[in-house]
């Protein structure tokens, strides 16, 4: 008669294994909501910069903050529209009408700005710095007064355009005496793009650079999409959430960003070159695109375009993903954007397909 074989798993061993498994489950539950990213918040580029880095604990945060902050501040000084620096010098030389050697830091912005002016049929026009200044926005704390009707008429008679800058390699010539560059609607896009390049050079694989609310992703974290909250432009709450993959930029232009009260009326900083006055009808325009400079310029353009024409300008600029909040608070968005956002409150929205419109100034 053969001896009885001992059981493969005794009750004691089974109990120990069970308790070990339960302990692992508890640890898994505890770890679920722990921060898996590092956050760095600092002042640079004239705004609040918020950096999200994945995974937590994998980066030299002090080095990243110091390098990125220095790079952003250099760009801010180079591109400032009214504080003395490379851009104000360029403006002075452009007004002289002679050929001159352009600062390299400004040249790339001029090229992008000329492209955006062409693609927007002139609605996006960073050559109108004098108009922005006339509304009091070349001040850190704008307070007015707005320009008089006569001043406005003079500014709008034969207005300068980006096409009035002659570009020959590294050399520039201004062909309009009142041409004044102001890259407020474009520079942050390029700054964010360069920040991502710098992070890559520093060995960062997964990050979000958020400069004053406008942001772009570097890579896609391996476990899921990046989760972004879209703040309601008319309140404190979150309007919607959106998942972003690798290399996607989200830029907005809004009437809440810079402005002042004048005789009971809110004057904001997005000036419509057609009327010379602050744009009307759209409280904020949000654009998602892989090119942050285009997203930045397009958000400004759609806001200026207004409630009727924004889908036509989106089509002309090659923007599929756009969302606008009208002054009354209602939401309009493209079908492609609708597929990406999840509203966080009850929102009545209207879908608008980006389509060509014969009333819109075509790209030149």
């Amino acid at each position, binding site marked *: 008669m053969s001896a009885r074989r001992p059981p493969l798993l005794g009750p004691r061993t089974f109990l120990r294994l069970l308790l070990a498994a339960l302990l692992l489950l508890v640890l898994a539950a505890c770890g679920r*909501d722990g921060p898996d990213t590092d956050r760095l918040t600092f002042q640079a580029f004239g705004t609040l910069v918020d950096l999200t880095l994945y995974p937590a604990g994998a980066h030299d945060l002090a080095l990243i903050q110091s390098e990125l902050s220095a790079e952003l501040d250099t760009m801010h000084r180079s591109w400032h529209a009214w504080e003395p620096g490379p851009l104000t010098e360029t403006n002075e030389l452009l007004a002289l009408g002679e050929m001159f050697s352009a600062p390299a830091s400004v040249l790339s912005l001029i090229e992008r700005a000329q492209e955006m002016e062409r693609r927007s049929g002139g609605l996006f026009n960073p050559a109108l710095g004098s108009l922005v200044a006339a509304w009091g926005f070349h001040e850190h704390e704008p307070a007015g007064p707005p320009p008089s009707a006569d001043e406005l008429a003079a500014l709008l008679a034969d207005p300068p355009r980006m096409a009035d800058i002659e570009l020959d390699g590294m050399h520039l010539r201004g062909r309009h005496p009142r041409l004044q560059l102001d890259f407020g609607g474009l520079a942050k896009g390029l700054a964010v793009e360069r920040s991502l390049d710098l992070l890559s050079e520093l060995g960062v694989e997964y990050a979000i650079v958020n400069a004053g609310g406008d942001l772009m992703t570097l890579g896609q974290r391996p476990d899921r999409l990046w989760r972004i909250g879209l703040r309601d432009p008319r309140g404190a709450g979150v309007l919607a959430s959106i998942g972003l993959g690798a290399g996607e930029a989200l830029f907005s232009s809004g009437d809440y960003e810079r402005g002042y009260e004048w005789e009971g009326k809110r004057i904001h900083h997005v000036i419509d070159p057609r009327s010379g006055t602050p744009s009307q009808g759209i409280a904020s325009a949000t654009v998602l695109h892989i090119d942050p400079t285009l997203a930045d310029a397009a958000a400004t353009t759609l806001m200026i375009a207004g409630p009727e024409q924004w889908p036509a300008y989106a089509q002309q600029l090659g923007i599929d993903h756009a969302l606008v909040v009208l002054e009354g608070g209602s939401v309009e968005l493209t079908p492609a954007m609708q597929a990406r956002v999840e509203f966080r409150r009850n929102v009545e929205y209207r879908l608008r397909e980006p389509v060509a419109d014969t009333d819109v100034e075509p790209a030149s």
Partner: protein
Amino acid sequence: MHGLRWGDALVVTLALALVGSAFGLVYTPAGGATELVVTQAGAAPRHFPLNEPRTIGIEGAAGVTTIRIEPGRARCLHSPGSQNICERAGWLERPGDMAVSLPNRLVLQVRGPGTDFDSMHF
């Protein structure tokens, strides 16, 4: 060799209860806001539980931002700056709600279980 005793059964029962409650706590659907997170340029984020009424002051580059905390909500009572953007945000009570004071370079955001965003677009 001994079989399982009543004490073993007790240990297993307690362990199962611990696991159940841990998952229960963590996977509860998102409710109200439970903490205020104050993020300020150059400083580590500060966390304030939204449990009892109190008023706190945060020193910033342009002055003091005064914040009122009540159970489940918080608001910016006063902050430097001419546009009152921080104050106009009103009560922050749904997880994710936020107010910004650019002069003081700080962001106030209320959070709750399972509602954190990687970044906020505004």
